[in-house]
């Protein structure tokens, strides 16, 4: 028994030693087309959350992306090929996201969208070493320094820079005023805070800030705190439910303070809750995409497509435009890589894209410099129950504050 064992062990060791080598077997065999590219289709990955903490957002965005891709494919596709979306649901789980990334990477040219900032952070290193051009479904300016990641629009910090400037321009606040920023613990809020801090210093405003936990739903403490500090306006980088709480708490105390929210602070559903009145009267929203249902050709084609397809379980809101815009911007970059549909080709095309045009849905996007924001302007809107997406544009064109051009994102040092 013992001898047999020893013999087996020895054979195995020798066998293992013979089997090892530091040379790859055969040639490298790099083909002309990249992974996921065939004669008539290009497969693109889509890693999102359809069953976890932010699945609401994930579903709406995906519906918007599908609307765009269906229309594109019906019109013949891109580079003579149809787009095939490879959708995977990570359920906001980091471990699962890594596993699904590894499952899909060999079969896709790139990722249109990766939702969830912890998931993106965890995959950042792999994305860079695999040279997979990946669209981030988030607007954190820290992401900009990843060479293979694209951000679809103006980052959170610049949204706040523009927003504060706008309030000052319109004389809603004045120099020397105190403004209070209620922000999320995490990348969304903390990145927005970078912008509000910088802009407040630049514009001669005093900034008070308070962090909230994503799970908190009652904002009484924060609002009272800001009122005690004499804030003349509130800035929010929070969830829509928290926005509702801020609006109703402040107005019920008779404090009709203007509220400036960025990006994901608003949902049209808020206008059917008891907080509808205060939200309508106090909220200003800054984001870099056209609101859903705006009276503009770029937004109208989405409304038309949505009403025709009527995707199940999804209501018409900003997230539809987000999903559409991501797919459209990614496709525009892809178009520039038609000559060489490889990972390197797409990477090159991304950095050669200085003016990605989505018909005004997003500002013109410039991806040429790693670390620099692709755009610096925002649309300013206010809640309006009469509009299909619940938002009315205040600025016909993009609003870009004078100081926004001087702002440097963390990646620009």
């Amino acid at each position, binding site marked *: 028994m013992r001898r047999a064992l020893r013999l087996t062990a020895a054979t195995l060791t020798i066998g293992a030693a013979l*089997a*090892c080598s530091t040379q790859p077997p055969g040639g490298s065999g790099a083909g002309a087309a990249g992974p996921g590219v065939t004669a008539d289709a290009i497969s693109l990955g889509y890693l999102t959350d359809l069953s976890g903490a932010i699945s609401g957002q994930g579903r709406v965005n995906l519906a918007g992306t599908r609307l765009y891709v269906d229309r594109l494919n019906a019109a013949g596709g891109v580079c003579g090929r149809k787009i095939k979306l490879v959708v995977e649901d990570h*359920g906001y789980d980091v471990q699962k996201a890594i596993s699904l990334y590894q499952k899909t990477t060999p079969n896709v040219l790139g990722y249109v969208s990766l939702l969830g900032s912890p998931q993106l952070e965890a995959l950042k290193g792999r994305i860079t070493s695999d040279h997979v051009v990946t669209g981030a479904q988030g607007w954190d300016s820290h992401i900009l320094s990843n060479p293979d990641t694209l951000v679809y629009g103006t980052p959170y910090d610049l949204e706040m820079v523009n927003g504060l400037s706008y309030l000052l321009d319109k004389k809603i606040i004045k120099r020397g005023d105190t403004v209070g920023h209620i922000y999320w613990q995490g990348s969304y809020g903390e990145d927005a805070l970078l912008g509000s801090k910088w802009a407040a210093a630049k514009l001669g405003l005093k900034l008070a800030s308070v962090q909230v936990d994503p799970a908190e739903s009652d904002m009484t403490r924060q609002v009272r705190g800001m009122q005690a500090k004499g804030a003349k306006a509130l800035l929010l980088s929070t969830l829509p439910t928290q926005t509702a709480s801020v609006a109703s708490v402040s107005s019920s105390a008779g404090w009709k303070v203007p509220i400036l929210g960025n990006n994901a602070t608003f949902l049209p559903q808020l206008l059917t809750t008891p907080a509808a009145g205060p939200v309508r009267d106090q909220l200003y929203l800054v984001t870099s995409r056209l609101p859903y249902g705006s009276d503009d050709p770029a937004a109208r084609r989405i409304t038309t497509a949505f009403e025709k397809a009527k995707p199940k379980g999804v209501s018409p809101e900003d997230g539809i435009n987000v999903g559409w815009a991501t797919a459209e911007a990614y496709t525009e970059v892809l178009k520039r890589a038609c000559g060489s549909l490889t990972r390197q080709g797409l990477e090159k095309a991304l950095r050669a894209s200085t003016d990605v045009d989505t018909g005004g849905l997003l500002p013109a996007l410039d991806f040429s410099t790693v670390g620099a924001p692709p755009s610096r302007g925002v649309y300013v809107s206010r809640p309006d129950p009469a509009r299909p997406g619940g938002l009315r544009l205040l600025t016909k064109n993009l609003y870009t504050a004078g100081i926004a051009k001087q702002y440097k994102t963390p990646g620009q040092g």
Partner: protein
Amino acid sequence: MTYLSRSPAVRRGAGIALALVAAVLPLFASDFWTQLVLYSAAAAVGALGLTVLVGLSGQLSLAHGFFLAIGAYGYAYLGPGTGSPDTASLGLPGPLAAVLAVAAAGVAGLVFSPVAARVRGIYLGLASLALIMVGRQVLADARPVTGGAYGRDVPVLDLFGFHFADQGPYLYVLGVPFGAYDRLWYVVLALLAACYWFVRNVLRSRVGRGLRTVRDSEAAAAAAGVDVQRYKALAFVLSSVYAGLAGVLLGLLFQHVVPEYFGLTLSVQYLAMIVIGGMGSLPGAVAGAFAVTGIPLLLGQYGGALPFVSSSGSGGLDSGVVAQYLFGALIVVILVIKSHRRVSA
């Protein structure tokens, strides 16, 4: 079956066969399977620790995720550094950093153990919840160490010039490229085996008997000459050392750690592992770790093949949602079957 499995020769044979299969598996299994086993094995190390604490010494802890975080972040901070400008590193060699990170988790367990001496059962569980709260705030605010909300990169393990979890030097075995996961495979499985062996021997010793006596009756244990507080502290330290090691391994597998991962959910998942496997049972803890970690990954990978399930997001019932229902149902089924067995045994 029972007789067979108790015969030492058969057991040893099975052990050797298992080891051989494990040794060659990365050559044949796809990345997905390698990864599934690795994540589960790393979790199994943590589950072994928790089953000693909860199952054998009877101290309920909801803070297991906290000790995992100490291991993972500790290794990342103490280790060689990844060149990221946002986070600091002490630059110690990888293996030393790993040992120190595990030790740090042990020390944290020791520091907390006096609390365990004061409160019991569900109250101890609630007290340990405080650690999770503190941990979350520390992970968010101690930026140079933890990287804040963005988390931080975890350096690769470098042993005598051979990188685990990295591509250098390039290695091919039987023509198969030996990637990051294949390299970590042997480290993780060897450590799991060593941990299993160690804790099994501890439990068969005087210490193990002492712990069980403490669980069943502290008064009886004290009367029999067992130093109750010392034994309880010992269980806490052992369990947090195991959690720390699991944290280091998971960090190596993830290559980047984020604070969201180490929340209360993670601690509850570890409790689920040891409950599914049977409180206090070592093979049960390992099996539970494989079930809790592996089933969601499996459903994510193959969920689309289930009947009545649409592919993700195309309307109708999503595989991700179905996966969650199935997982919940499975836990109920396992628990019901297990409680039957316990009655009949």
